């Protein structure tokens, strides 16, 4: 039985610049694969390949064991791969339910069935454990974590099988990050394969089932949770020389 999404030896070159080289990992349905890396590690290129924005220069990208070649993000979306970008695709002045169904409004012809949309948006968010009291409130008045969770719930509702989250916790406070991590877990429990991109091992370790470490476009390793501890993860992330500085920082917390 093959994994939901599989990458084998994926490479990407921009002219003579090597953005990614020989990356392999896999995402199972109902599990969370964390992609960790510092700035410039190639995380953005990685996402862009997964979401169909770039075609890989080499290697194989398989879904359900079948090699795929996406020409555009639309193809990737059709294959069930949804990407929630850091700068969320939402209009801040529009209400939660209007944002939820933006681009895929329910109803025949041009008609937008607003009552159904409101009820469904609320129910879908509730299924994820998100309690939006007032579905009419503008998305701009939600906190960062709540906004992320609306985006996640939206991706789940519209039939995503693989959910790619680009640094969802990077701009959030401690509590808000916790909320988003909870929703990541909730999405995985509903049977989705989640790819969680982050540079924070402390966010990745509790929710992840699999960890792919990137550095300067190359893989530092692809581990199952049983194969690696959080200290190990942190050490690999930081790399020898930088470790001391990081530990210093961690001790201060």
């Amino acid at each position: 039985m093959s994994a939901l999404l599989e990458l084998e030896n994926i490479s990407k070159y921009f002219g003579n610049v090597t953005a990614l080289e020989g990356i392999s990992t896999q995402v199972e349905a109902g599990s969370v694969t964390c992609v960790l890396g510092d700035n410039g590690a190639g995380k953005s290129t990685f996402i862009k390949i997964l979401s169909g924005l770039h075609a890989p220069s080499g290697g194989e990208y398989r879904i359900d064991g079948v090699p795929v070649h996406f020409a555009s993000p639309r193809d990737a979306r059709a294959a069930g791969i949804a990407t929630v970008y850091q700068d969320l695709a939402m209009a801040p002045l529009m209400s939660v339910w209007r944002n939820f169904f933006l681009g895929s409004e329910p109803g025949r012809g041009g008609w937008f069935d607003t009552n159904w949309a409101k009820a469904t948006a609320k129910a879908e968010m509730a299924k994820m454990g998100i309690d939006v009291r007032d579905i009419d409130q503008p998305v701009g008045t939600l906190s960062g974590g709540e906004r992320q969770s609306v985006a996640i719930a939206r991706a789940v509702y519209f039939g995503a099988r693989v959910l790619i989250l680009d640094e969802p916790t990077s701009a959030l406070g401690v509590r808000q990050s916790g909320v988003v991590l909870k929703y990541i877990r909730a999405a995985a429990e509903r049977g989705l394969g989640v790819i969680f991109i982050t540079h924070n091992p402390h966010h990745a370790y509790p929710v992840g089932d699999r960890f792919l470490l990137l550095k300067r476009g190359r893989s530092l390793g692809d581990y199952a949770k049983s194969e690696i501890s959080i200290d190990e993860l942190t050490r690999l992330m930081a790399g020898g020389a930088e470790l001391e500085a990081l530990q210093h920082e961690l001790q201060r917390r």
Partner: protein
Amino acid sequence: MSTTEAAAAPADSEPRDERIAFRGPMQRLLISPEIGAIVGATLVWALFWATGQQFGEASATLSWLDAAAPFGIMSVAVALLMIGGEFDLSSGVIVGSTGIFVGIFAQRFMGNGGPLWMAIVLAFLAAACIGWINGWLVNRTGLPSFIVTLATFFVLRGVNLVFSKRLMNKVIVENINGETIKDIAGFQWWLSDKWNYKAASFGWRNQVFFGLVLAGAVLLVAGLLEQSLKRRTDRPPAWAPVGTVVGLAATVLGIVLAHTTDGVGANLLAGLVGLLGAVVATVSWAAWRYETHGPTGTFSLTGRALLLTIVGAACVLLAWLVTRPLKLDDRRQLLSIPPHAIKVLIGAVAAVVAGGLALRYALGKLLRARSGGQTVGALAVPRVAVITAIAAGLGLTTVIVFLQMATVQGFRAIVLIGLGVLGIVLLLVAKGAARKTSTRAQLLPGLIAVVAIVGYAVVLRADSHAVRFRAGLFTVLLLIAAAVLANTIIELHQVKRVAFETRPDRVGRGLASLGVFLAGGGLALRLLFSGQNIYRWIVWWLVITAVAAFVLSRTKWGNWIFAVGGNKEAARAVGVPADQVKVGLFVMVSLLGCLVGVMTALRFGSVTAAAGVGKEFEYIIGAVVGGCLMTGGYGSVIGASVGAMIAPITLNGIPLSKWNSDNRFIFLGVVLLAAVLVNQKIRKKAQEAR
């Protein structure tokens, strides 16, 4: 125990987010974008209604509606575009261009007897092309639409001038509607005002009107209560149903009496019967259907609530006192200081201000030098004195200029309406503030407000120019008083809902909308059957507003318009065809501009080369007053439609109120600014409250 605790205690059956408070129907109305325009238009309308001789009559109403229609149509179009995040500065000039196009095309290119309909169809096609070019350029170049459409504006303006001069040898195109043009009757029928709808008034017109308005009001009140109160589960008290029926009957009786009798005593009696009836009906209905509890808190007023109550009451009292010595038939200027004295006065004021500014500057220098950048406390006193002197000088100048310009009547109207309304509003705000801590405390400002409104009604009634509307104005004010009184009593002992409930919310909204619709229908019926001409573009305006509002709120295209204005990249990322939406909006603005242009040309028969120039700003003002954000992504077409009414109401109302019509632009400027400020202020306040 405070009310908030009392209210929160029973509602804990389901987990809730403590950060989001339930918003009642009033709060929801306050954060809607169109509130500023509605408040502004209503206040301006009420001002002229109360002071103008015939302003409320059907003929005057239709005349300002006629003036407002082209503005309304274009404001709606521009509002949609603005919500979509763009501007169109060529929206004014295209009205003239299309008119000129129709005139020249029909007369020169097709010779005498050319068919008008072909010219009109071609004009619409040309307008669509212009809109498409605007949109395409904005999308393609990424330049601000301000610049792109400014270019279109200049090009079109030049084209108008060149073509009308070269082909017609004048800067005006005439005889558009002459016998020289053949036409298909249908086009004339739709686009010109040759057909005037004119229905004779019928016997029961007033009764039907009042019936509809009353029914609308009842439904509106029922809807509002449904949205803000909690349903009761136990048996209601026995007096409640009886009170409801008796109260309703008394209200009807009161209104009928007020309209069939004349004279102060009879009217006052009728008003009282109606007022009390309405209050009894509302309170009984609330007790019948909704949960009650005992009053909470103390009667004492403190802090802001107390201050607001005192100031509010003082304002209403002052409004009455100031107008006492000013006679209704006084036509003089308020103050006529001879020119010589004015020169001396202004010179003196200028000296004080200039001297003060110089002194302030010197003091500042001195202070900094002495303290090395730190402010010295001891020198604060002369500083304050200097600032006070400057402020007093400027204030005095303003007062003198105002008094010199204003007539006795203008001053009287401003004080009577402005101060009176301000006082009542302050009292209501005080009531709201007091309600936060205790349901007993809101009783006092509530009752004072009721007394103030009734007193105000009596004063206005005895005062108004508009003799025919005495009863009407009186009734409206008494109804407001009744509403405040009923609200005060209900808030004293009724449980306010604090949680969202889908069904009552929807039922309440439905009832309230139906009520507004019925009352509006009654008003429309009264206008329609007044025996006056109704110009066709008023109908166009209403239909276009309704269609635009529907598209915006109930179709996917509306969702897309909001999205491309709010966050274009995000919209594109989720599959919204953002570029097409923008092009569509530009084309729509141009097409509606063409519609207005053709209608104007056919109605007046001639178009000057400068027609429509400068109007684009008035359309934008209409949209902004109507609550559209200049940055896009937020707004309302109904607001824009109402916002476009303010200027025509003012321009029609000032002569009817016999004010000096030279003041109209000053008045207009102040009103527009105020409407936008109200918009911003209220929205901010309401956003904070949630």
